[in-house]
């Protein structure tokens, strides 16, 4: 009788423990998803800002049509891109185009005195930063999730309920993340 009760108690504790780990894993997975959504929000925001920016600078930069077109084209491609790999590449191109644009801006002191432009520039700089920080947070979450999946004992539960490890959001070159930050100012 007593041994039966002990057995029952052990089973109950074990089940509760598995439930706890399972819920923890689900929570982490949702956090990873949410972190990914944050990156998306910021990328969209960048897409939204660029037409405004182009509208503002058009009048000042009449001789830089090519540069402006490049930015607009890169922006449109990035907005249409689907799939992680394609999106990452398109966003990378957009960052580079913007980088070039802001180098060219240096030659237009009038533009740099324009309140509207300055406000947009701050917005864009900040959006770049936010993309970077969102990516950073996403990667942190992914690492915590993956650790949980691979470490004992939670890996047993993860295996039983087939949790899949998430992928890190890597940029092709480390410089890419900083590039816009540098050239925006």
């Amino acid at each position, binding site marked *: 009788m007593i041994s039966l009760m002990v057995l029952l108690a052990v089973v109950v504790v074990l089940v509760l423990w598995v439930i706890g780990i399972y819920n923890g894993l689900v929570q982490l997975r949702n956090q990873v998803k949410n972190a990914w959504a944050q990156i998306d929000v910021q990328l969209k925001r960048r897409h939204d800002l660029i037409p405004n920016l182009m509208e503002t600078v058009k009048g000042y930069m009449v001789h830089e049509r090519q540069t402006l077109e490049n930015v607009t084209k890169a922006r449109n491609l990035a907005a249409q891109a689907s799939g992680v790999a394609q999106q990452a590449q398109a966003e990378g191109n957009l960052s580079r185009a913007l980088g070039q644009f802001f180098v060219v801006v240096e030659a237009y002191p009038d533009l740099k005195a324009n309140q509207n432009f300055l406000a947009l520039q701050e917005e864009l700089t900040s959006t770049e930063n936010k993309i970077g*920080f969102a990516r950073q947070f996403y990667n942190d979450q992914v690492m915590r999730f993956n650790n949980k999946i691979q470490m004992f004992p939670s890996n047993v539960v993860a295996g039983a309920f087939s949790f899949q490890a998430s992928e890190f959001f890597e940029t092709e070159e480390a410089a890419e993340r900083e590039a816009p930050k540098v050239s925006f100012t």
Partner: protein
Amino acid sequence: MWEQIRLNQRRSVVLVIAIAFILVVLGFVIGEAVQPGAGLIGVAVAALVWGIMSLVAYYQGDGILLAVSGAKEIEKKDHPQLFNVVEEMTIASGMGKMPRVYIMNDMALNAFATGRDPQRASVAVTAGLLGKLKRDELQGVIAHEMSHVVNRDVLFMTMVGILLGSIVMISEIFLRGLRFGAAGSRRYRSGRGGGQGQAIMLLIAIAFAILAPIIAQLIYFAISRRREYLADANGAVLTRYPEGLASALEVIGADEHILERANKATAPMYIVNPFAKAGRFAVGLASTHPPLDERIRILRAIGGTVSFQQYDAAWRTVRGSSRGVIPPSALMQGEAQAVLAPQPEEEEPDERKRMRQAGDVLRKVNQFLFLPCACGLTMKLPPDFKQDKVSCPRCHRELEAPVAQVAAAAQVGAFMAGQGQAPLRAAAAKAPAPEAPPQSAPLQITRQGPGWASFKCTCGQPLHLAPGEETTDITCSNCGQHISVVESLPH
């Protein structure tokens, strides 16, 4: 997230228990001293005082703190950069909800965070800080403050502060009561013939009532310093750029201003000890914050990668200590991340310009009126300015007080047609003439240039347009009238 926060605090919990123990003993000793055998009643009274203060602090703490410091809430358009920096750190820390942003009218360089959990957090910075710091540095400071919120330091330190406050309060009441009630209690005691035991108990109680606040305060400071290091480390990890915070601390340390509206209870929430320069607090054991130069050296000693481990290692090197300061649970999280490259020398607005911006934000929240003159000067009229004309100090033009700028379209039309001696009207004439019928004409104002502009609604409510804010229609926050904005183009 939660288990980590709880683990983080385990070390501090020992110290908290020590303070709570002091409170209980204090209550007991005083109870016994007042009447033999009433020790437990004393404990109950102490617990009651603590309980009430805790409840108030838990539910009203942030509001009280913000009110005491004279902080005013601002909106994004008032200071986009500050807002963006806070938003960036919200994303980096994964807080979910952006804290509210406040600005304090003070030239001292300081900032604090409050709010018992990330859902109801606020950060406040002084106008001086906004003016003096570059973007990177501001980001470092905000990251430090947000770390306090994420680590639940605000809640934790408030609760510890309440314990401390209860001890101070009870000791104070007891000692004062003793002084005032000396005669009465003597009669009372001799009547019962309590004698020696009672007298000794009284002496113990007095000694304890004097010592307890001091000991509790030292423990409190020790906890606070620990949380500061942790927030520094966390801030560096969030920004991946320890130099930002380091150089911000350097700038703050070099500044001479003293925060006017700080008080002891709120000191641990600030980025640097608001009393350090006032000479009211000694450094070292009796300070809420570690010495600034040490914090800077630790941050600078972090190598090419940043993580909690790196900070801990740097801390040990700088302090020459074998035990670190970062709780083990935090050490386990996250791997080393590359430190971001410093941004190249950038053309940020210089200090004078930043100061002016910060000042303008303050004037806006304090209901000043911004009155741009045609010569380019912007006059800033305090809210109690009563005259209806003001003379421009640079070009001596007479300007209408801004309430006159709000007029029915018909009147604006009359202005433009009629006497045009005031530059404002001259400028208004360049704007496209409103063709609305005179009767149902909406209210209208003409805006001069891209800077701050403001005016009074017909109901007397001051309304403001921030630089870079483009709108053609605003709603009076007081009476709800719509007012259309006409840009007067300078070119």
